[in-house]
């Protein structure tokens, strides 16, 4: 982009846009005070700028600022509710205006020209997009200007599955089912156990012999094979608990997992 823009030289490329921008209001006298119509303050500024009927690169920012402030004043006079961003823009533009009217040397950094340029650039961009949107909507839209086939048959992809299985798998499956569901016969092998009754008898008999404390291991059959020994220990323990409950024996155990001792209650 050339800096002609800065100084208002008028390259005329922008003419393309004007014909299409159907929405740009024409009657510059009739400012319809209806803020719902604007998509924010920048949009309002853009419409005001378009009323100057010059290329956006040539607009007078000062005039634009005055128009905007005037517009906001009117809206306030009519007690229209103004959204905050319109007022923020108004305040900023008022500042810009005063800066533009001040003598140059008193100005600090972003010079009013620079601020104005930025505003102009933003307006150009928004204007370009608004026109682009209008042209886009003016194209041949499906369902409005062009129509697709009303009732397409559709392209069918029929997926066929070729199932595979072989004879062995079949027969094996049958074997599996048969085996799984064959009547099952359960046989429990005889095991060497000491029943609770015999343990009870054995423990109370042995307790009768002495009044001393005896460890529970001493009640077990001395030469039993290991599995009988486990059974005897379990049964003897239950027998001991039973005798204690009946008040015929006392139990003692000093530590957790320590030897369990019992003696007859005299």
């Amino acid at each position, binding site marked *: 982009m050339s800096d002609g823009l800065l100084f208002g030289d008028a390259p005329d490329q922008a003419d393309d846009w004007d014909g299409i921008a159907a929405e740009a209001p024409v009657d510059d006298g009739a400012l319809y005070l209806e803020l719902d119509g604007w998509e924010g303050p920048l949009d309002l500024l853009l419409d005001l700028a378009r009323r100057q009927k010059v290329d956006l690169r040539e607009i007078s920012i000062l005039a634009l600022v005055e128009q905007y402030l005037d517009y906001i004043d009117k809206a306030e006079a009519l007690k229209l509710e103004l959204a905050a961003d319109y007022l923020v823009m108004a305040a900023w533009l008022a500042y810009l205006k005063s800066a533009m009217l001040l003598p140059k040397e008193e100005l600090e950094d972003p010079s009013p020209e620079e601020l104005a340029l930025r505003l102009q650039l933003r307006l150009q961009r928004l204007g370009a997009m608004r026109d682009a949107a209008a042209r886009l909507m003016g194209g041949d839209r499906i369902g409005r200007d062009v*129509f*697709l*086939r*009303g*009732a397409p*048959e559709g*392209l*069918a*992809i*029929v*997926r*066929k*599955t*070729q*199932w*595979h*299985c*072989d*004879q062995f*798998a*079949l*027969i*094996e*499956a*049958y*074997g*599996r*089912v*048969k*085996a*799984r*569901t*064959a009547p*099952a*016969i*359960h*046989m*429990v*092998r005889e095991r060497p156990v000491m029943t609770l009754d015999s343990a009870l008898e054995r423990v109370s008999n042995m307790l009768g012999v002495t009044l001393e404390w005896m460890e529970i291991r001493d009640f077990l059959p001395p030469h039993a094979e290991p599995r009988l020994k486990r059974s005897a220990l379990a049964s003897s323990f239950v027998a001991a608990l039973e005798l204690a409950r009946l008040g015929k024996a006392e139990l003692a155990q000093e530590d957790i997992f320590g030897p369990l001792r019992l003696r007859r209650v005299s």
Partner: protein
Amino acid sequence: MTELERAIEAALFAAEEPMSVDALAGFLGDAATSDVRDALAVLAETYSERGVHLVERGKRWHFETAPDLAHFLRKEKEQVRRLSRAATEVLAIIAYHEPVSRAEIESIRGVQTSGGTLDVLMEAGWVKIAGRREVPGRPTIYATTPEFLDHFGLSSRRDLPGIAELRATGLLDPVDDSFEELTAMPEEEDESEDAS
């Protein structure tokens, strides 16, 4: 190509249903029906050799794809898939016990059988509905098809190995037992009398 032909072409293309000559004439701003008829004849002729034809069916006109191209437009894709374990079991039960109802299949398998499994077997062409059992509820019964024998290389169902043979080949032994037999260590032969 006349404007009327173009308009008819577009209208029939975009229409959701076939259109009669009267409907077309009305649609196109009251064209004369004779003109519409002529235009349709021209269009039908134009399209007669193309991939799309303009045809009249029961006094109404529409475009359709050329019949000889049907095979292009309906693509069949074949994929080979292995029958699932459950489906194989069901197929085996049907083969050994046919005709058999779903409840019977389930009682033999000891598991519920999903309807999808039977569908797969019927889709594969190996199982068919063989009528209904004349018992309360009249359940559907299933049997195998000639394609089944074909696919599995059996000349008849009698070629299926009998129970005795299955037993001899070990296919009837509980899986766990066979496994243990193959892996058992001689040392300790105790407890595991698990049935199942």
